[in-house]
């Protein structure tokens, strides 16, 4: 992997799904490309967020775009469901890993179709599962516990609560993930369709810096 993206977060709320990812492509430790989008609107019901190699993500983007076009051409009113995209992606990624030539990505798929929201994960090994909250990369260690805490006792957050929680998680990741950046995008999928906001900027709180002094 050469140019890579860091964490992608996903959270189900009452009425849909939200995904968030920052807009930086890192070249090792260098924040080389600071305005790239790692969230892809597949169709009106599905969004895909990818971490890992950006060139491989662009490759997936091309494949998916062509698939969606081919499907539109059929003109039968049907479009790929989020679950279908997830299933397809699992097959593709697992097949590539089985040829020892993986697409070096961890992908989160979020969607809403027929009133039912979907949130799925696939990684470069072909490991795939669904969950009410997802996070890749550093997010799995730092953000997932925060996301899960909000979902305890079967609670489903409202859209505003989910949005705020994701912003809080992105801030934590900005503090603690050395490969992150303070600009990010958010994609919300509901029955009404896909809404991508961004790039948004995170405000960091450095107040505690004044409380700390170096003492021998």
């Amino acid at each position, binding site marked *: 992997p*050469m*140019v890579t993206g860091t964490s992608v977060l996903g959270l189900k709320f009452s009425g849909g799904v939200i995904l968030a990812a920052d807009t930086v492509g890192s070249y090792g430790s*260098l924040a080389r490309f600071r305005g790239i989008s790692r969230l892809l609107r597949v169709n009106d019901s599905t969004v895909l967020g990818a971490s890992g190699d950006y*060139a491989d993500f662009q*490759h997936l983007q091309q494949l998916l775009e062509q698939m969606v076009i081919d499907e539109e051409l059929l003109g039968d009113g049907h479009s790929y469901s989020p679950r279908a995209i997830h299933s397809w992606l699992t097959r593709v990624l697992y097949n590539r890993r089985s040829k020892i030539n993986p697409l070096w990505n961890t992908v989160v798929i979020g969607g809403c179709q027929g009133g039912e929201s979907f949130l799925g994960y696939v990684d470069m090994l072909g490991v795939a599962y669904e969950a009410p909250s997802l996070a890749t990369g550093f997010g799995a260690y730092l953000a997932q516990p925060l996301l899960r805490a909000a979902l305890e006792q079967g609670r489903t957050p409202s859209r505003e609560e989910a949005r705020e929680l994701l912003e809080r998680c992105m801030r934590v990741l900005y503090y603690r993930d050395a490969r992150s950046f303070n600009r990010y995008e958010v994609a919300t999928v509901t029955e009404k369709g896909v809404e991508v906001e961004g790039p948004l900027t995170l405000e960091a709180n450095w107040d505690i810096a004044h409380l700390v002094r170096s003492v021998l």
Partner: protein
Amino acid sequence: SAAPLPLCPQTTIMAVEFDGGVVIGADSRTTTGSYVANRVTDKLTPVHDRIFCCRSGSAADTQAVADAVAYQLAFHSVELEEPPRVRTAARLFQQSCYRYREELSAGIIVAGWDPRRGGQVYVVPLGGLLLRQPFAVGGSGSSYIYGFLDATFQPGMSRSQCQEFVARALALAMIRDGSSGGVIRLAAITEEGVERTVLAGSDLP
């Protein structure tokens, strides 16, 4: 020119867009290890009349890919009966660089002018992704000037401002990077054509 060590893009290359065209620049040093094999290399390679590529990485790899793209573009241009788009050239580079990413060591900046979108700069780094940027740098020397670039770049610069920007940036990189040096080759690509300049010795900013 001789192929440098693999995975060591020993160069500084740069391209900036302005309204009406692009300014591209590169140093002129090719090294095999620490010996300067060619001190007057031309790393600004035309792939079509108004489309150039700046090459970093393995000289052999980039020359081979650039040759192939130049051929494809020439053919495409004849079929199209009009000048090819810069984006097409960039996409052709990306297709080769992505497909053969494991075998190639090529960091390429594609820049040029076409009648549809004017001046454009695209970057195809190691790994084979494709991205359009207002300006792009590449090569080992680029690491030393990110700070300068971040502090100095303004969108909407004129052609002469761009040329000065590129010259200053390259000069700074060449001082600090042992793998970059020699003269600064600049080219300004516009609708009127390609104007090449060489900044050497005392001309260096």
